[in-house]
């Protein structure tokens, strides 16, 4: 039986493929994504109040290493099988090394619906995985380290919207004490409803992206389905190595399987303007995101439960 939240994503795809004009203002979409980032951070912060793991530093280093490794797996596939140039291969590899907050949110919603426990500090891992892949992708595309200068780090790391919102909310949730509880009716209890609305919009966008699949589509479809499977299995392995709970293993797999379509495209637009942005977005949003939401996430949750039991 398909989850009700995920069903809204399917509804969006069907509506777009049928040509139904569902009005969805851009402002609302941005508000919903902002809500999700704050809610994820806040929930993590509140949960951290009860339990701080001393092994968090070691885990964070492992997660950053994981983020550096994923684009290095994607890049040779793109270069050898896709015969893409360095610029486009580097840009797409960066998308697949980074994470999708929406896919993570879907996984969290499914875990909570199934009463499966997961580690509270996962929002921190989401933040940690945003950046390393961008750096690796840029270095692979340019072939040198000169692109990573002070201005780039300031813009992409310190002033990055999603990093700032999630880390900020996590800290507020952690240090806010009892006062944070008054925010929970809005940010915690409405989470699934907001996510359903957000997924409806994502379904509309994914349906639109599917229509743009033309040139190089067989390779792109294959890559965009294979890569989340590889990343997800690698994430599962990391989750087992870090001795995470069943939900934690599933979330680590989902982080490995997901591909960014918000933070990385923005960074690539600035740093690699010559890259074909349409190809990366079609792959990450039009193919990988639907694959993960409909098949990948439920599979990795089942795998996490099996391995974590």
């Amino acid at each position, binding site marked *: 039986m398909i989850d009700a939240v995920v069903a809204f994503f399917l509804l969006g795809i069907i509506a777009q493929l049928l040509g139904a004009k569902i009005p969805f203002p851009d402002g609302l979409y941005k508000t919903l994504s902002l809500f999700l980032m704050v809610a994820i951070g806040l929930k993590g912060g509140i949960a951290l109040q009860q339990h701080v793991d001393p092994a968090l530093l070691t885990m964070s280093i492992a997660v950053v290493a994981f983020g550096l490794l994923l684009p290095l797996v994607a890049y040779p596939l793109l270069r050898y*099988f896709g015969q893409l140039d360095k610029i486009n291969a580097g840009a797409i590899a960066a998308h697949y090394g980074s994470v999708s907050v929406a896919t993570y949110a879907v996984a969290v919603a499914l875990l909570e619906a199934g009463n499966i426990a997961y580690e509270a500090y996962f929002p921190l891992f989401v933040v940690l995985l945003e950046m390393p892949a961008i750096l690796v992708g840029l270095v692979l595309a340019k072939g040198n380290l000169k692109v990573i200068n002070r201005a780039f780090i300031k813009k992409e790391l310190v002033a990055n919207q999603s990093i700032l919102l999630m880390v900020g909310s996590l800290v507020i949730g952690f240090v806010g004490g009892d006062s944070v509880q008054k925010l929970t009716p809005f940010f915690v209890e409405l989470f699934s409803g907001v996510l359903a609305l957000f997924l409806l919009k994502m379904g509309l966008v994914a349906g639109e992206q599917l229509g743009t699949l033309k040139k190089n589509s*067989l*390779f792109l479809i294959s*890559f965009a389905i*294979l890569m989340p*499977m590889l990343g997800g299995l690698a994430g599962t392995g990391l989750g087992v190595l870090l001795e995470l709970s069943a939900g934690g293993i599933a979330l680590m797999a989902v982080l490995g399987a997901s591909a960014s379509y918000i933070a990385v495209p923005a960074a690539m637009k600035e740093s690699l303007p010559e890259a074909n942005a349409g190809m990366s977005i079609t792959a990450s949003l039009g193919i990988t995101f639907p694959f993960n939401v409909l098949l990948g996430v439920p*599979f990795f949750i089942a795998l996490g439960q099996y391995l974590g039991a």
Partner: protein
Amino acid sequence: MTFKSLALPLITCLSLLAFSYLSSVLGHGSTGFILLALSIFSFSIVSLIQSSRETHTPMRTSSSQLKEAK
């Protein structure tokens, strides 16, 4: 169409079939993975046929043009 361009779709199909097996072992539905594998496989075959047609079309044209010239 080269070996390189067909290799990744075939690897993806095999991986999807492996996932479908794992999924059924885990007691989870495997239909989605199988359907996706079949779709990619069919798409690969269609692309292969299209590409071989495109390769052979100019040769046929040139031979018919030769006949006309004779």
